[in-house]
């Protein structure tokens, strides 16, 4: 019992510590593809360190929401980490507190507060980005729902620990059409939710074209550090759900010892590294979509997820 709580905390620590690394690695890999030198992969840590030691400026006209939001944005991915398999393939202490749908809603809560905070200071660019994020968000919502429904339809549960078992026992289940199509749909969702390239350009610094970035334009110092760190963790958590629950449910600790759990960390990092390579290929071979084409991109994701469900119905 105490051991399971400790493992849960180790998971949270892993997510907190390695999330900036994943982001730095992704940026570095992208620059390598573009024949640039680029900053070191540890740059996000340095940024966070610097920001935590800077003064924070908060507009007089902003309300409590603006001050409160960085903490929510930081805490929600941590909370989701308690629910999902990051290192172990058996459920931990908090695992039955919520399923994948609950995790999705908790993540959406952070996004909701970030949107409110962007409007709060009445900076002209904040609301533009906020409304665009909402547009992407509500178009992504039906896809999320269908993905979860299909998962529960196939696996009979939405608890991620039970779902990951289903895809590999027996191994031929891995090739079920519903599984492969779900993976495709979820990949598109990660691109949309993480503000990656076909939907948003994370490296862009032009305020009028921003979608995700503009929400934290008004933050400085510690608030900005928390927003950034929260953003890194959200991406990391999404990748963990994608890899550990849907794509590669292998290489996680099945033993109850601390050593086995610690040994799962390098496996996880390796999987994330491979996924980052895929992301780099996607990001370097597509261009950003025009704003009103985003609905078509997410429409394609929706069709893919519904095709997953239809294919499953057709099989039975």
């Amino acid at each position, binding site marked *: 019992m105490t051991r399971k709580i400790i493992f849960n905390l180790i998971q949270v620590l892993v997510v907190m510590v390695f999330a900036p690394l994943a982001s730095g690695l992704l940026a570095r890999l992208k620059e390598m593809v573009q024949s640039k030198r680029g900053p070191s992969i540890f740059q996000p840590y340095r940024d966070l360190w610097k920001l935590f030691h800077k003064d924070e400026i908060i507009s007089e006209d902003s309300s409590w929401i603006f001050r409160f939001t960085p903490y929510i944005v930081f805490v929600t991915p941590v909370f989701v980490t308690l629910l999902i398999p990051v290192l172990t393939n058996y459920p931990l202490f908090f695992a039955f507190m919520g399923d994948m749908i609950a995790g999705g809603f908790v993540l959406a809560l952070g996004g909701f507060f970030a949107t409110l905070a962007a409007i709060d200071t009445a900076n002209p660019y904040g609301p533009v980005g906020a409304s665009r994020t909402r547009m992407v968000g509500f178009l992504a919502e039906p896809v999320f729902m269908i993905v979860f429904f299909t998962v529960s339809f196939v696996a009979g549960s939405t608890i991620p620990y039970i779902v990951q078992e289903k895809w590999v026992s*027996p*191994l*031929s*289940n891995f*090739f*079920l*059409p*519903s599984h*492969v*199509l779900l993976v495709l749909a979820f990949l598109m969702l990660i691109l949309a939710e993480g503000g990656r390239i076909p939907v948003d350009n994370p490296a862009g610094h032009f305020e009028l074209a921003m979608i995700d970035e503009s929400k934290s334009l008004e933050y400085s110092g510690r608030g900005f550090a928390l927003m950034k760190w929260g953003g890194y963790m959200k991406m990391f958590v999404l990748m963990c759900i994608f890899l550990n629950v849907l794509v590669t449910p292998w290489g996680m600790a099945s033993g109850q010892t601390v050593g086995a759990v610690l040994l799962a960390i390098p496996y996880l990092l390796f999987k994330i590294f491979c996924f980052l390579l895929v992301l780099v290929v996607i990001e370097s071979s597509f261009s950003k979509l025009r704003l009103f084409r985003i*609905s*078509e991109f997410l*429409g*394609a994701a*929706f*069709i*893919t997820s*519904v*095709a*997953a469900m*239809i*294919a499953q*119905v*057709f*099989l039975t």
Partner: protein
Amino acid sequence: MSDTTNQLLSNLNALVTGLFLLTAFGIVAMRQARGCLNLFIVQSLLLAASAALLGLRYQSVDLYGVALVNVISKPVVVPWLLRRTSPAEIYTRREVDQALNIPTALLIALALAILAYFLGLPLLKAVAPEFRGPNVPIGIAGLLLGAFTLTVRREAIPLLIGLLAMENGAFLCGIAVSRNLPLLIELAIATDGLIIVFIMGVLTRTVQKQIGTTAVGELAALKEAPVRSAQREETK
């Protein structure tokens, strides 16, 4: 063959048919004529893969033949014929217009795919249990989606591809329903398809020469106006 291999082959076949359904949706929604053609090539390869997997599963040489004919005729000969006959301008243009906007078209396509399930159910009941599988309903869905492409597209080449996609759907259904489809029929249909492609390509080129566009969807007004006046005169 052992049970696990059979299970694996069935699941792989199901996966191929699932991807087939996805390409059928793609053909409805794809903006570029070029992308449409590429999707059709992928769809034909998936059809061939499904035939090969079923052939492996049921040890049927005829299905291997079907796969082979598909690999040669559709992904290779059809694009080649189209390139030779139809005007090159279609491939360079980035966007072709549609009668409906893309999200609406996709939603209707989804409804059609669900309808295909109910159309497939009685058919599935009629065949022996070992022939049941995802091929029949997804084949019918491919047929319906191809027909739907024919109604929403307004450009000659995507229209032709919709027609060929219908044929692909019918075949995906057919290879599951009868294991020993005579190779002669498959050959005949493949030749027939190629001739359709040839005729349509030449027709498109003529249309483009006459009126300077291949957006055949806009030709309706040109054609109907004199007919209407003739009718009016009759009613008078």
